[in-house]
């Protein structure tokens, strides 16, 4: 694991890597990982058919289902949502004048969850100014770390995935904040970046692995790199995706599924 605080424009460089050093895409590991997951799911769930599928997200792996992190608060979720939207605007080269107001404007157009929007609307002027300052600070860290995203990369943002496991009894869902590269290329070029407003920790490492696993299962091609950037601390973790990382992620997912299933 490479864990380091990088210079402002090195995040994108680290994601793409040296052009000449890109390996051939791994198109064979996906089937093995899926088989391991299917076997694990059938061992945990047995013959049981839940009324609604067990949902697994990257956030399920960040912390134990019985514990709640400070950043899971509604206000933390609002901040995270707004910073994710600002990343999307930044990735397409938008001119962001007032980060908070622009993020709120874009968020309203998306049709946000009424309870979260209500929370923002209920803020008094002081609290609103505090949240705006907070969001702006995260945005400044984000833009300094990323630098300008080249138009030729066609970077995708908020890329969603929804995979069925165990005949639909388990749904593995994921959203990756920024994806570059294509799974159809002759060399491995896909790099995934998750941006979080929380400091990086053990949970972030599991989420980083989860993104790589879900992308592998979704496209049947192993991505080249998976990375995570904290806009709270400026920390940036990047990891080459290999067999060991995917195997550990399968273990993480099955462990989380086991806990979620026991808690039902």
């Amino acid at each position, binding site marked *: 694991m490479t864990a380091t605080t990088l210079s402002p424009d090195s995040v994108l460089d680290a994601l793409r890597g040296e052009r000449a050093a890109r390996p051939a895409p791994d*198109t064979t590991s*996906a089937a093995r990982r899926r088989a391991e997951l299917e076997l694990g799911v059938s061992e945990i769930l047995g013959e049981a058919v839940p009324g609604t599928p067990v949902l697994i997200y990257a956030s399920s792996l960040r912390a134990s289902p019985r514990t709640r992190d400070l950043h899971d608060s509604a206000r933390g979720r609002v901040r995270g949502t707004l910073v994710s*939207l600002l990343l*999307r*605007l930044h*990735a*397409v*080269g*938008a*001119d*962001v004048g007032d980060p908070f107001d*622009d*993020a709120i*404007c*874009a968020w309203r*157009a*998306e*049709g946000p969850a009424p309870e979260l929007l209500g929370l923002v609307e209920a803020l008094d002027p002081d609290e609103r100014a505090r949240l705006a300052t907070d969001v702006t600070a995260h945005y400044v860290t984000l833009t300094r770390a990323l630098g300008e995203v080249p*138009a*030729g990369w*066609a*970077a*995708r*943002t*908020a*890329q*969603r*995935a*929804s*995979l*069925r496991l165990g005949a639909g009894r388990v749904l593995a869902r994921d959203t990756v904040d920024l994806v570059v590269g*294509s*799974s*159809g290329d002759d060399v491995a070029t896909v790099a995934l970046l998750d941006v979080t407003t929380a400091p990086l920790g053990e949970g972030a490492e599991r989420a980083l692995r989860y993104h790589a696993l879900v992308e592998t*299962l*979704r*496209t*049947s*091609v192993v991505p080249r790199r998976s990375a995570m950037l904290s806009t709270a601390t400026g920390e940036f973790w990047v990891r080459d995706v290999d067999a060991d990382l995917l195997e550990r992620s399968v273990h993480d997912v099955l462990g989380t599924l086991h806990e979620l299933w026991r808690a039902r």
Partner: protein
Amino acid sequence: MSELVVEPYDRGSIARLVESAPPAAATLTDDHRRSLAARFRAVPDTAHRRIDAWTVESAGRAPLGFAWTPAAARRTVATAALRRVVGCPGTPLRDAVRDALDDQVARARTGQTRPGSLGTWLDAAGAPVRALVVAEAIGWAGATLEAARRAPGPWTVPASDAYYDVAGARTTLRGRRDLEFAREGGRVIVRLRAGSPGASAGAGLRCDLVVAALADAGGIAPTRLVGLWPEAGVALGVDGSMEDLRAGARDLVRAALATRRRRLVLAA
């Protein structure tokens, strides 16, 4: 009715689905068109109705109102951008998407769009909303382009979706299509979808299939209609057989009936 062809969406799935399509498809005659029109006329409605695969998949429970959002706008902008990329290879996708969006806004500003249209909404939306539409459209166009490049042989981005006005029934049928692959003996149409396929995904594809056949001057159905769910990593295919066309037509009439019933309940 033929069985759904199911494939994991990997590097070779589109090529397999295109190449394994039946050599020829069924053809709808004037008698078929007249029979379908008679069935729609038997389900009168107070307003002009538009029916598509989504109406069928949601069994008439889809919201009757519509509001533009960046996610709702992405497909239209992305498709226009793809035509630019195809017409002028080498154009960065992001630039093509921006140009396509600017084109919509320019048409609204010169009075070429009607109220409630995408151009009108984009013109009134703030710059951050337009940037979010660009971000959404890049994702959609990127997924479409990736699918196109995975198949052998020539492909095109259709000039528009397939539309068919049912004679005397105040009904317009719409079939979505994102890519068309030409092959000997017919064409294969690919439709991209968000989310993951539900239990009615096959019915939705059959509706797109029958509208594609109706919109064809000769009534020739595509040899296969492929639904692609990149988020779920799954591709489904429906063959252009007469049984599938009949099933699709039946579902469209049922959807008209369900929508009419719902309108009556809401009005009561």
